[in-house]
């Protein structure tokens, strides 16, 4: 392998795999052209026997052609982890999630204080721990959000979104919004929260629970039961279908009858699953063993049930309300989507 080959191989290392062979061949052909021209300019005889002279020429040529890494980089478009189209939404999600995180940490502290059993010094210790806990939580939340958005950046097709943005017309400000036009940010946020939800219950399920500061120590009481995990496959299927549907909708840019029907089916499926989870065996529970040493450990079983109900019922009410409103909206749009046609026929 001579110097030229080595140089080309070095450039190739940093090239996109698909175009590597082709770009390498072109660089080789160019370098050989340039080399030949220089040899002729120097009046050198074109023979392989004059190796040392050739080598000096090659070195000079390669120096001029540039650092292999830089040469390879010129073939790449600027890579984005999170591109400019998703970045504004990314910022909003980070702000929301970090605010919620701060709220949860302060609430947890509040519960520990109200739960009693802490001395003044212990309370102060827990209080000074808040910034540190927030920092740790914020870092991991931020990392996870970045991962989710980086995935979305690669899943969402480029062309369609630009078209959607370019369609904007100031006249639309005055008119009522077109019900068939999808809302880009709503779809993205729905994808984000679906991925986040799936992520939490599949990867961090063992960390879902109630957290306590007891003195300087930090206790965690898991609350998900085995019954919850029997529903997890169904949650996953619904979640993945939801993401798939969001992507199809983003690709198409407007609602179609069949995407509306699919959306309706998914929302009804979610409500049905929620109904099963609510009426079946308890999905949240606090085992006395795990709760020992926390204010929860002293609670009687029926108090525990009241407490889990306190968490579950508002969640399910919110879920039913949100899905119910959507079901009504979708049904309304489906029933009204033929209106213009009928109107024309009457004319």
């Amino acid at each position, binding site marked *: 392998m001579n110097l030229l080959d080595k140089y080309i191989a070095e450039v190739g290392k940093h090239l996109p795999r698909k*175009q590597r062979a082709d770009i390498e061949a*072109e660089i080789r*052909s160019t370098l050989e052209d*340039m080399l030949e021209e220089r040899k002729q300019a120097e009046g050198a005889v074109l023979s392989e026997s004059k190796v040392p002279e050739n080598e000096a020429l090659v070195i000079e040529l390669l120096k001029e052609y540039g650092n292999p890494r830089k040469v390879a980089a*010129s*073939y790449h478009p600027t890579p984005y982890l999170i591109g400019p189209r998703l970045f504004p939404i990314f910022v909003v999600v980070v702000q929301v999630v970090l605010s919620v995180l701060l709220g949860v940490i302060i609430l947890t502290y509040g519960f520990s204080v109200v739960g009693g059993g802490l001395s003044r010094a212990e309370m102060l210790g827990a209080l000074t721990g808040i910034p540190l806990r927030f920092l740790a939580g914020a870092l991991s939340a931020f990392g996870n959000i970045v991962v989710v958005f980086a995935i979305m950046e690669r899943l969402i097709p480029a062309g369609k979104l630009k078209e959607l943005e370019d369609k904007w017309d100031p006249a639309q400000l005055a008119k009522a919004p077109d019900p068939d036009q999808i809302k880009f940010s709503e779809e993205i946020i729905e994808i984000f929260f679906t991925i986040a939800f799936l992520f939490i219950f599949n990867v961090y399920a063992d960390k879902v629970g109630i957290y306590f500061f007891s003195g300087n120590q930090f206790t965690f009481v898991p609350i998900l039961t085995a019954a919850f995990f029997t529903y997890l496959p169904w949650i996953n299927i619904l979640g993945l279908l939801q993401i798939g549907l969001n992507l199809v909708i983003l690709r198409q840019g407007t609602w179609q009858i069949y995407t509306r029907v699919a959306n309706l089916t998914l929302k009804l499926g979610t409500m049905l699953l929620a109904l099963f989870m609510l009426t079946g065996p308890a999905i949240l529970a606090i085992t006395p063993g795990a709760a020992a040493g926390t204010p929860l450990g002293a609670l009687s079983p029926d108090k525990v049930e009241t407490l889990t109900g306190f968490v579950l019922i508002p969640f399910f009410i919110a879920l039913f309300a949100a899905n119910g409103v959507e079901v009504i909206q979708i049904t309304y749009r489906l029933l009204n989507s033929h209106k213009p046609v009928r109107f024309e026929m009457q004319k």
Partner: protein
Amino acid sequence: MENNELVQNMLLELRRGILSVAVLSQLSHEQYGYSLLKGLSDQGMEIDQSTLYPLLRRLEAQGLLQSDWRIVDDARPRRYYVISAQGQAVLAQLKSEWSALVGTMQKMLV
């Protein structure tokens, strides 16, 4: 930032757009990369290999150029580029835009 650096950056931006037009204009007959590079340089349009080759690829991906590998006159294989029908249409439009732009700028820069 030094004035010199500012000028360099702005020149780079200016040239970035112009180079595509320059390349399209020189490919009415087919050429391989290095001959194009020399042709441009002879006419006073200096361009780096590291700029030209990726640019040729981009223009080809956009459908404005066509290329294929060929051996001419028993020399080594080279990739020959030539403007496509779409490229010609685009170039014609760019030419008239360019003259308008030059006219406007000349009036402004007097």
